């Protein structure tokens, strides 16, 4: 110890400085401007339709007023967001914890069956709830006949039904991501906490929950965006959010410019949500150390607790999926019995194929781009790339129909420029004459969930892994292919599923941009449901659910095989 303490500290500080400088060089990414440019380019392309709408909106500022009752709409939106956030967190995190930490009857089945409500469009469940729990529905009639009042049943068909329906259909986003967090990176810590004597509840609250925070925040961000842009479900329950305001202004006042201005407000909400997500994630990063480890044995519940746990989990599945599907099947059967022509022509077969193909194309396009963006951010590490990556997610927060118009306007402008440049015919009818417009708008809208899922997966890859690969001389492409891709495959699988399922359920974009002769299942449901032919709409609605189950199945298989099971190891 001949070196004085201060000197040692100084040396350390100097070393720190060198390290910091070295890191800064890597982080500003001066070495890889091409990747920064690529991320910025993707962000720019994705933003064009949104910007087109903004330009359209700002061009006519001043000659239109905000609609009356805007304050109330904002309050309603905030209240709905808060209620859905609470509902999805309780259901999503609660169920994920239940199936991870405890063993009870049906746990292994439930752990993946609980993802199924993802396949149920909120607008379908919304109508089912409305018609079942309305004053004319069976439960209300039975209640009036027996106890003389039915208010305790009918509240579900009132405004409070909206957060219930949205929570039941959206909680799987939170469930999926938090369960993956609990099982993956949290596992080792969980084991440690339990071995050190913490109770399951304490280990959950003080160890697992903080660890899973980024995942929960990511899932919640997706849920919030879906809630923000929903206009069909909330209208069933006469809940007037800002998105409904956009529609009211557009349709009721024939005023697209004001509607576009109002959708800027929806965007502002989205910025708040995304900022909130960043804050919730905090500066925390939790990298996985080492590979998969066998999970600790979940606590085997005994006695009444075991049945309470089972009842809680099964009842969610029953309410969110089993009963609605049963009701749809019943409607489809009675409608077919009344009018067999609805089945005979197989008229839904082509719609089924169209929905499937579009979902697959959308999933591949969005996840491909999300991967490039996430990888680009990682290898450049620059602020610019990260900001651009954030921009790509805003499309998710713009109501579908507004994006559709944005795509139309953007392509119309491109068409005009091309013709001005002397290209005969310009782009022609490339948007609405083919499915290209729909695909482009899907990318604008669904890049966000894909990015969220892939990014969450990248967050668990330690930067030292990336840096090691580079220091061994790999090119960025090779790092993507050989290191990042394999390490983030669970996130990629989740992203593929989220986009595919979203694309199958999506309606306003397809409705607006589809070419002649192109109909999807969601359009069939819309056409029938719009005229209140709900019994006839049940069959295509069931097909949507069935089609959406396909990617969910792939996801579950992936998750199950990727997770080592105790049984195999014991």
């Amino acid at each position, binding site marked *: 110890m001949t070196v004085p303490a201060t000197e040692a500290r100084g040396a350390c500080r100097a070393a720190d400085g060198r390290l910091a400088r070295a890191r800064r060089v890597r982080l500003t990414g001066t070495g890889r401007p091409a990747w920064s440019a690529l991320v910025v380019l993707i962000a720019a392309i994705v933003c064009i339709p949104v910007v087109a709408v903004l330009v359209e909106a700002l061009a006519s500022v001043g000659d239109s007023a905000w609609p009356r009752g805007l304050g109330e709409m904002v309050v309603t939106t905030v209240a709905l967001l808060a209620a859905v956030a609470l509902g999805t967190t309780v259901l999503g995190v609660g169920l994920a914890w239940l199936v991870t930490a405890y063993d009870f009857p049906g746990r292994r089945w439930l752990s993946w069956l609980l993802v199924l409500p993802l396949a149920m469009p909120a607008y379908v469940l919304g109508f089912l709830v409305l018609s079942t729990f309305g004053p004319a529905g069976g439960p209300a009639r039975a209640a009036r006949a027996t106890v003389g009042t039915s208010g305790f049943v009918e509240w579900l068909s009132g405004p409070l039904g909206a957060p219930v329906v949205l929570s039941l259909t959206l909680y799987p986003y939170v469930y999926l991501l938090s369960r993956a967090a609990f099982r993956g990176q949290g596992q080792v810590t969980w084991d440690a906490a339990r071995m050190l004597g913490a109770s399951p509840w304490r280990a959950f609250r003080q160890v697992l929950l903080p660890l899973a925070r980024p995942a929960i925040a990511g899932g919640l961000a997706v849920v919030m965006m879906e809630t923000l842009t929903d206009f069909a479900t909330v209208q069933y329950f006469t809940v007037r959010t800002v998105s409904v305001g956009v529609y009211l202004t557009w349709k009721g006042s024939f005023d*697209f410019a004001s509607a576009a201005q109002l959708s800027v407000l929806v965007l502002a909400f989205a910025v708040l949500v995304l900022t909130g997500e960043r804050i919730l994630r905090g500066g925390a990063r939790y990298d996985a150390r080492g590979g998969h480890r066998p999970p600790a044995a979940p606590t085997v519940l005994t006695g009444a607790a075991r049945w309470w746990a089972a009842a809680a989990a099964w009842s969610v599945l029953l309410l969110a999926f089993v009963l609605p599907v049963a009701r749809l099947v019943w409607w489809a059967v009675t409608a077919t019995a009344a009018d067999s022509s609805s089945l005979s022509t197989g008229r839904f077969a082509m719609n089924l194929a169209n929905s*499937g193909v579009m979902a697959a194309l959308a999933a*591949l396009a969005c996840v491909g781009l999300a991967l490039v963006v996430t990888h680009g951010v990682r290898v450049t590490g620059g602020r610019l790339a990260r900001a651009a990556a954030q921009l790509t997610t805003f499309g998710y927060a713009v109501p579908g129909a507004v994006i559709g118009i944005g795509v139309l306007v953007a392509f119309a402008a491109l068409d005009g420029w091309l013709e001005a440049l002397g290209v005969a015919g310009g782009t022609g*009818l490339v948007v*609405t004459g*083919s499915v290209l417009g729909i695909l482009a708008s899907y990318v604008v809208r669904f890049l966000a969930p894909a990015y969220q899922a892939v990014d969450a997966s990248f967050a668990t890859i330690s930067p030292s892994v990336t840096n090691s690969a580079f220091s061994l001389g790999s090119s960025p492409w090779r790092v993507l292919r050989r290191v990042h891709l394999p390490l983030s495959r669970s996130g990629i699988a989740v992203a593929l599923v989220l986009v595919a399922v979203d694309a199958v359920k999506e309606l306003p974009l397809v409705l607006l941009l589809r070419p002649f002769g192109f109909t999807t299942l969601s359009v069939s449901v819309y056409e029938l449901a719009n005229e209140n032919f709900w019994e006839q709409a049940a069959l295509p609605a069931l097909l949507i659910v069935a089609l959406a189950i396909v990617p969910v199945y792939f996801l579950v298989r992936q998750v199950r095989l990727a997770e080592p099971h105790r049984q195999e190891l014991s």
Partner: protein
Amino acid sequence: MPSRRPTRAALAGVAALAVTAPLAGCGVLGIGGSNADLQIYSARHYALEGAFKDFQDETGISIEFISGNDAELLQRIKAEGADGEADVFMTVDAGNLWNAAQQDVLKPLQSPALDKAVPADLRDSENRWFGLAMRARTTTYNPDKVKPADFDPKDTYAGLADPKWKGRLCMRDATSAYTQSLVASLIGLEGREKTLEIVKGWVANGVQIKSNDVELIKAIDAGTCDVGITNHYYVARELKKNPNLKVKLYWASQQGAGTHVNISGAGVVKTSDNAAQAQQLIEWLATKGQSAFVDGNHEYPVNPDVKPEPMIAKFGEFKRMPLSAEAYGSQNAEAVELLAEAGYK
């Protein structure tokens, strides 16, 4: 690493689906574009296929259509411009037809046949659009709880603001085009101040808001509402399904201005490359094709020479309020505003 396989399998499955499905049938993804003679953008969905097929069988002119929302389809026609394929724009609600003409996407037609078939107030004064089917929006009630004599025969809509209907009233939401056009027509008829008073009266009566007409009719049948305002064809449709439904229709304001009506209609798109055949279709729909076009949905023909179908003929004849598309259209925004001011959800 065995756990790698499922991602590959999933990816391979997705890719295979993406590649093979378009080959399975030429109609997938709409590849091949449109080959029909006429392309129709329609915001009306009721029973279009049947009428179009009859037209095709009769004239040999083939038709293709896409359905969608009025406002979006209009934006699409404008964005597509001269490249667009649309020949005919068809929509529900006179206000929407008026708006389409205002947006300058429709072409004036010279047609003695249409002038004769469609009453003057159900078509554009400059012949850019023509009403083809008519619906009435009137009072419906549960006969166990309400007698026809309870209604105000002069001004039935305003009469529902009377305190005697407190807690007994059901209506559609403010976002519904039906509510908006009814209120717009009341503004045209009674002025803004009086209309605001009427709507406030409904709200003061604790009107229950329903988000669709069928649920509203079912609530009347169940007895949780005594009286409501609905489109006549929903009543016809529900009665056809269940003749024992406890729902009856009362023709509003028969001793006054008449019952509120609205239309579905169509016009030829300015950029149409086949305007002659497009006009032929509209003429056919207003004459020979009237029944095929309106009966499937229990609507009233606009052509006075054509009889309504038996189910709605049973509702009896009624006096209708004269229709002013301009008023419905130009006052719709005011109606939305007024509904909000009155606290109507």
